[in-house]
């Protein structure tokens, strides 16, 4: 008896501890759960204003990177963990579409230029370009490289650090960029030359950018695969715009959403003028909406890459990704 | 204090195919001390643990007055238990150990600890750490701890066998006095008959899971129920004898046993049944000798057999020397079921 009381009391204590830290959750139908990746960010005041005007409470649930997010959506499609998802990128889009995770919705503000197909299930929200970044003062007199070919030039021996496409999303984008540039039969040869030129492969962006890259003060390598937007935050660096690979991030209303009406409004919000204007500072990506000005610092340090076609068709990526990564592994690590 | 005679009936404990305690009946009167005596492995400790409720496999009944203990969990049986090696709580001091049972039973008796320490002869030990006590002191504390909540029955499992000999004998005497003074019924398990006879009012002899004989020390000593019991109680030699008019006549001669009934019996000879004596009637040759504390134990070749005998330390002959022996009636026991012994 005493035992039961002790156990019950402890369970109560436990429960109260956790519940105390939880914010009260509105139970009304006007809650929309936004499932997204870890990099999602929005200025609080902006979100508050939207919530006030629309009467919708947005609950943000982040889970992993774009890949993890997509896979979670696929796994839970029978009973989705939210109403709307943002963050499925061009690499994973066709998987999500094939698995029927999203329902159609065409927002009046959608930029048709980035439309994937005519089913209107995914709406482009932002553009993130992955490019080689150079630490301009770390080159020690060598002229800045500009193209993919330059990177294999012995002038830049032991200067480049990249992320593994197997474990890193920018790493995969860079690999796809080389495949786009050199073709399905030419990229292997290029990587062989990169390897001979002393390319260093690490597992993730954090390590490449914060540990190996000389631009952040710690590392020794002045060339790193990062984002076109990175120079906005790191002085004396710039992106090599000819080495970029474009990744577009999409949002969509989930199939089986409990509040599809509200979800559509949230999607409209994501491509609204105000939200788009803050996308660079909040998430280090470029807005998809036409006519949205970039912040001043960006215009100088990180202008948007102009090659809008620098991307492979989603279907092709989905079909070949595993095969390409495996080839790359045996080529570079074998 | 819970009072009432303890009645054990048909108590059986099995471990798999082994029957450790087999259909045992035993009574312990109010305030009586009973010793459970037997060779190691005979099941006596198991029997004691079954009475305490520590053997879940036990069958049968254990009644105290109107209570059926067998259905009670250990902590409600109101028994005290003293192990061979104290098993004092190492994280409590002496007083804390003794007070334990009082706390469990919510007994508020501030003088009890001092009273018990007086009883066991350790006055002033209240604050001592139990890990710093000697073995004998630990056993005294263990006894005090077991007695503190005034149990209806005290169970002592080889309480003295972890101690050295001198201490054991002294403590046996003390323990006997303490048990009498506390007035608690007690069941003492031991393999040492001296200890059993010192402590107990009555002795129950156990062999292979069964109680083969119960009686007072004298009864058991003089009338072991069968040959194995006689052997266990120190009779090295068992012979046929014919008793006529209080005199037993057998192979080695005649001996006066006024307490023995008429008829043909087996008699058991303990070593001191044969005593070295220059005027003794028996003639033999010493084949071995061992010094004991207050006598010498001899192995003597007597015609066609070897027998045990004793001699005083002063005149014990060397091996190889001749020796004369006489019979001492005190060293004789009569073997056989009690029913045949008309004296009783």
């Amino acid at each position, binding site marked *: 008896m005493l035992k039961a009381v002790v156990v019950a009391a402890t369970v109560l204590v436990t429960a109260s501890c*956790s519940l105390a830290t939880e914010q009260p959750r509105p139970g009304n139908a006007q809650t929309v759960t936004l499932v997204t990746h870890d990099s999602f960010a929005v200025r609080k005041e902006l979100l508050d204003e939207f919530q006030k005007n629309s009467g919708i409470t947005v609950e943000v649930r982040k889970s992993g990177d774009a890949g993890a997010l*997509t896979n979670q959506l696929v796994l839970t499609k029978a009973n989705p963990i939210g109403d709307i998802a943002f963050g499925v990128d061009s690499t994973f889009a066709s998987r999500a579409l094939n698995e029927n995770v999203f329902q159609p919705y065409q927002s009046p503000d959608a930029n048709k230029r980035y439309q994937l197909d005519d089913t209107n299930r995914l709406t482009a929200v932002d553009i993130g370009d992955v490019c080689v970044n150079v630490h301009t003062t770390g080159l020690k007199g060598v002229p800045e490289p500009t193209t993919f070919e330059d990177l294999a030039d012995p002038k830049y021996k032991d200067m480049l650090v990249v992320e593994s496409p197997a474990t890193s999303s920018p790493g995969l984008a860079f690999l796809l960029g080389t495949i786009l540039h050199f073709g399905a039969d030419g990229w292997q040869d290029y990587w062989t030359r990169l390897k001979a030129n002393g390319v260093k492969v690490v597992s993730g962006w954090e390590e490449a950018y914060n540990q190996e890259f000389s631009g952040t003060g710690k590392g020794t390598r002045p060339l790193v695969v990062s984002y076109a937007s990175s120079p906005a935050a790191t002085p004396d660096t710039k992106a090599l715009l000819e080495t970029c690979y474009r990744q577009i991030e999409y949002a969509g209303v989930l199939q089986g959403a409990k509040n599809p009406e509200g979800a559509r409004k949230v999607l409209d919000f994501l491509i609204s003028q105000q939200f788009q204007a803050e996308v660079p500072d909040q998430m280090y990506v470029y807005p998809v909406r036409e006519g949205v000005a970039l912040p001043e610092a960006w215009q100088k340090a990180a202008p948007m890459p102009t090659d809008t076609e620098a991307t492979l068709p989603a279907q092709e990526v989905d079909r070949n990704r595993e095969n390409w990564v495996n080839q790359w592994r045996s080529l570079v690590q074998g | 204090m819970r009072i009432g005679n303890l009645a054990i009936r048909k108590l059986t404990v099995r471990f798999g195919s082994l029957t450790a305690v087999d259909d045992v009946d035993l009574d312990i009167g109010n305030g009586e001390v009973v010793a459970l005596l037997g060779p190691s492995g005979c099941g006596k400790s198991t029997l004691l643990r079954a009475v305490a409720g520590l053997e879940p496999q036990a069958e049968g009944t254990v009644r105290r007055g109107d209570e059926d203990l067998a259905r009670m*969990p250990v*902590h409600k049986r109101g028994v005290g238990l003293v192990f061979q090696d104290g098993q004092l*709580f190492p994280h409590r001091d002496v007083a804390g150990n003794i007070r334990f*049972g009082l706390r469990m039973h919510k007994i508020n008796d501030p003088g009890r600890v001092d009273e018990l320490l007086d009883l066991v002869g350790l006055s002033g030990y209240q604050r001592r750490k139990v890990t710093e006590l000697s073995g004998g002191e630990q056993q005294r504390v263990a006894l005090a701890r077991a007695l503190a909540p005034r149990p209806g029955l005290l169970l002592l499992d080889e309480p003295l066998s972890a101690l050295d000999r001198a201490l054991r004998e002294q403590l046996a005497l003390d323990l006997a006095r303490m048990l009498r003074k506390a007035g608690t019924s007690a069941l003492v398990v031991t393999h040492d008959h001296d200890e059993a006879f010192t402590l107990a009012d009555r002795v129950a002899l156990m062999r292979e899971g069964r109680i083969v004989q119960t009686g007072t020390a004298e009864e058991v000593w003089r009338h072991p129920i069968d040959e194995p019991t006689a052997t266990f109680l120190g009779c090295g030699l068992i012979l046929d004898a014919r008793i006529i008019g209080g005199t037993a006549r057998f192979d080695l001669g005649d001996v006066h046993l006024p307490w023995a009934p008429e008829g043909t019996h087996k008699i058991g000879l303990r070593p001191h049944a044969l005593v070295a004596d220059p005027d003794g009637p028996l003639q033999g040759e010493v084949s071995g000798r061992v010094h004991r504390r207050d006598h010498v134990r001899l192995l003597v070749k007597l015609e066609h057999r070897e027998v045990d005998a004793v001699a005083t330390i002063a005149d014990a002959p060397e091996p190889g020397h001749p020796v004369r022996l006489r019979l001492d009636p005190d060293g004789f026991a009569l073997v056989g079921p009690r029913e045949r012994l008309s004296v009783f």
Partner: protein
Amino acid sequence: MALVPLGFLTLFFAWPVVAIVGLGARAAMLDTLASSDTWQLVGFTLGQAAASTVVAIAAGMPLAFLLARCKLPGRGLVQAIVLVPFVLPAVVVGLAFRGLMPDGGVWSIILANAFFNVAVVARTVGGLWANTDRRAEDAARALGASRLRAFTAVTLPALTPAIGSAAAVVFLFCSTSFGVVLILGGAEYRTLETEIYLRTVQLFDLPGAAALSILQLAAVVAALVIGAVARKRRQAALKLRGRQETARRPVGGEWVVVGIAYGVLVLLLTPIVSLVSQSSVEGFRALSGTGHDNSLEVTGLRAAMNSLSTATDATVLALILGVLSSIALMRLGRSAELVDVAMMLPLGVSAVTVGFGYLITLDALPGDLRTSPLLVPLAQAIVVTPLIIRILLPVLRSIDDRLRQAAGTLGASPLRVWLEVDLPLAGRSLVTAAAFGYVVALGEFGATSFLARPDAPTLPIAIGRLISRPGELNTQMAYAACTLLMVVTIAVAVLIERFRTTVEEF
């Protein structure tokens, strides 16, 4: 009594894992199992885990001796320092080792894994060592044995259960270590754990991941069974005594061991110091904010508070589960080893597998736990419980059962017996276990990163996030947060040390 922990384990571990593995159980699994690449992966995983375990034990034993047997000033501090590595998020330790050993390769993986786990060895073995009667050793010495001989002939066998126990835990931790291998192994060295993550999260190759999960599970079970067999019946009844009587100033050759222990301590401190030296005043100041361009949704301090409350919940829950399991394990006969192995399994299964398993199962429970903040302490408790059992069980088993029986006959009900005998005698170990569990929950990264809500990140999650976003301020803040985590750990360890001595003198 075993039902509560087993039920919990079934609900929050077995079911999700079976569900996610079942989802991938297709013919394609066989391709993965047949590939030689897979078997190399298994070989490397087990090899590095075994090597790390050996290193951790070699380094942990002198520390255990120092903590258990030596009366030297600064003991509390040593105890605290040993614990620190355990709470550091893997991603941070990985970076620190990368900085210290730029071309370390396999060795840096082994050393980093050992670095994490020295605490397990020092505390598990030290716990039993402190409670072991010194007289047996003295007896051997008196019989002419040298100190070393007395150690190998008397002390070591007595400590074997704790060493076996610690080795099993360390092996599991190392064979499933994720962040360290990912960062230090670069793209070159992979283990089952990183490959499962890769296949599940990136490639969505569920059959491949399921095949690897099954292999991982098999390897873990094999290791556990071997450990259990080795431990079996060696947890003999030891004479337990309080620490005051077993610790003394080291003499003679013992100073050599003490010297080695301090050497290990210096080695442990190296990565820690390198981390602390990278935190700056700006970084600490930034903790009250949300980082460069609001990288975090809450302030660093808020994340720290979340960490504390989540770890408290997880520890309380794990203590309940761990204590119940330990009691049940002690009482169970033959099936005890089985339950023991079952309780250890969560240490050997990828957090990714469990996390994805939650996604497809927990919506069936009332209240859709998939998105509940309660999930974090629940998951952490599952990781912490086996540790508590490991620490508690050897000590509980070494309490003479007759002591409990004596208490029983004196009128103590089974619960009272536990409270009056087991609890005080195992109290030190229980406090150790709680402290350890708390610290592990504090630093837990794998499962938490899957389950923590972004508006309630724990400190390690915040650190992981800060370090993955550009901006010098974020990096500084991350290192400052690491330092904060270490300070909290040391504070907890020192506090518990205080609390412990007062508890013991009652």
